[in-house]
């Protein structure tokens, strides 16, 4: 028999009202909300060390400041997600500093090193656009009030990151020659990696609890289409090639999806399609930078804690 809380929860959800506290949730909703928040917090957090490595290669003082400001924004966005998790009973310090690197839940793309300014520009234009689609959808649809409200400013700041990415991609493409060739080579590996960002296609993912609980409003494929509809026309407008085209209302990929990726070489093999099970294995094993990025920000925390205990 449904408990009184379950009935109240079902009614709130059905009416489209916001849920404001744990007393209004079912344990299953709380679990799914926490999972969604951890993915969001981890993604924002790990983008900081990922972007920092490329920001160090900024071509001007102002560009360096812009890169650092973006990193600062990302850390603040991570804090918003972890802070809500604290209010839901988790501990922010434990989540950030005491988890095993492999248990962080961010997209695989961040595990592949960003080593140059053009790679950062593409990351701001592609990865932050993916973040914009995912968080924009949550901001619009999310049934949990505190998160929905926390995302208002996040969205505005993500716009600035997109601006940085798009502006620099355009400048580098306009420069032509080897600079443009390098940009194109990086787009070639970063574009398919961001297409993957949105997860399993809808025909492989029959049931979504996140949709059922209105933690998000769009399916994986709908989000992927949204991303393609912004990124593909922009790349084409600046003379950068991407392996996708429009057919009617839909955006269609010009390569087998999924296919194999060599992270060390940053190269896709479009002649070697693979299964989603293969992709899930690659994601679970994590990529080249996972351990190092997490170790970097956990190291000083551990040293300080050890010093305090002496």
């Amino acid at each position: 028999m449904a408990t009184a809380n379950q009935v109240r929860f079902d009614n709130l959800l059905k009416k489209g009202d916001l849920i404001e506290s744990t007393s209004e949730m079912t344990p299953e909703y709380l679990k799914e909300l926490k999972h969604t928040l951890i993915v969001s917090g981890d993604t924002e957090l790990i983008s900081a060390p990922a972007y920092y490595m490329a920001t160090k290669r900024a071509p001007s003082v102002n560009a360096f400041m812009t890169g650092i400001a973006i990193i600062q924004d990302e850390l603040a966005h991570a804090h918003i997600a972890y802070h809500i998790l604290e209010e839901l009973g988790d501990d922010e310090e434990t989540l950030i500093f005491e988890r095993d690197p492999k248990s962080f839940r961010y997209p695989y793309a961040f595990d592949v090193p960003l080593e140059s300014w053009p790679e950062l520009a593409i990351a701001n234009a592609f990865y932050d656009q993916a973040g914009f689609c995912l968080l924009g959808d949550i901001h619009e649809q999310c049934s949990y009030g505190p998160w929905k409200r926390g995302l208002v400013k996040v969205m505005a700041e993500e716009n600035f990151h997109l601006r940085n990415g798009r502006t620099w991609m355009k400048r580098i493409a306009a420069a032509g020659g080897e600079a443009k060739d390098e940009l194109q080579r990086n787009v070639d590996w970063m574009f398919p990696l961001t297409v993957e960002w949105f997860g399993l296609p809808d025909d492989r993912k029959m049931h979504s609890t996140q949709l059922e609980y209105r933690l998000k409003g769009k399916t994986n494929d709908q989000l992927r289409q949204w991303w393609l509809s912004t990124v593909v026309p922009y790349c084409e407008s600046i003379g950068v090639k991407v392996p996708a085209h429009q057919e009617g209302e839909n955006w269609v990929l010009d390569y087998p999806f999924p296919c194999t990726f060599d992270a060390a070489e940053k190269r896709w093999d479009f002649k070697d399609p693979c299964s989603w099970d293969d992709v899930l294995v690659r994601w679970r094993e994590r990529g080249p930078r996972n351990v190092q990025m997490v170790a970097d920000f956990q190291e000083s925390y551990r040293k300080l804690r050890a010093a305090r205990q002496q």
Partner: protein
Amino acid sequence: MNPDDRIWAALAEIQDPEMPINLVDLGLIYGVRRDGGRVDVDLTFTAMGCPAADFVIEDVRERLLAEPDIDEVRVRVVWDPPWTAARLTEAGRDALESWGLAV
């Protein structure tokens, strides 16, 4: 509209890259001088470490060069007097407050 008003109106079309407010309402524009097809713009930033400085200058140049009788735009960054919230116009104050920024 006289030519100077037209320049101010054009500058008021440029949004700050980080906040939903235009450059004129934010109080960044200190002065505009016109000499034939050339325009000199004095502007400031809310902080010396403004991460969007490059974008703001680029936007000012692009927007003013889109005016038919302007063929050169010179931007001078000014730090004295420093920007404070007192430079916000009333519309600017409303815009920032509605965005959730206490000013």
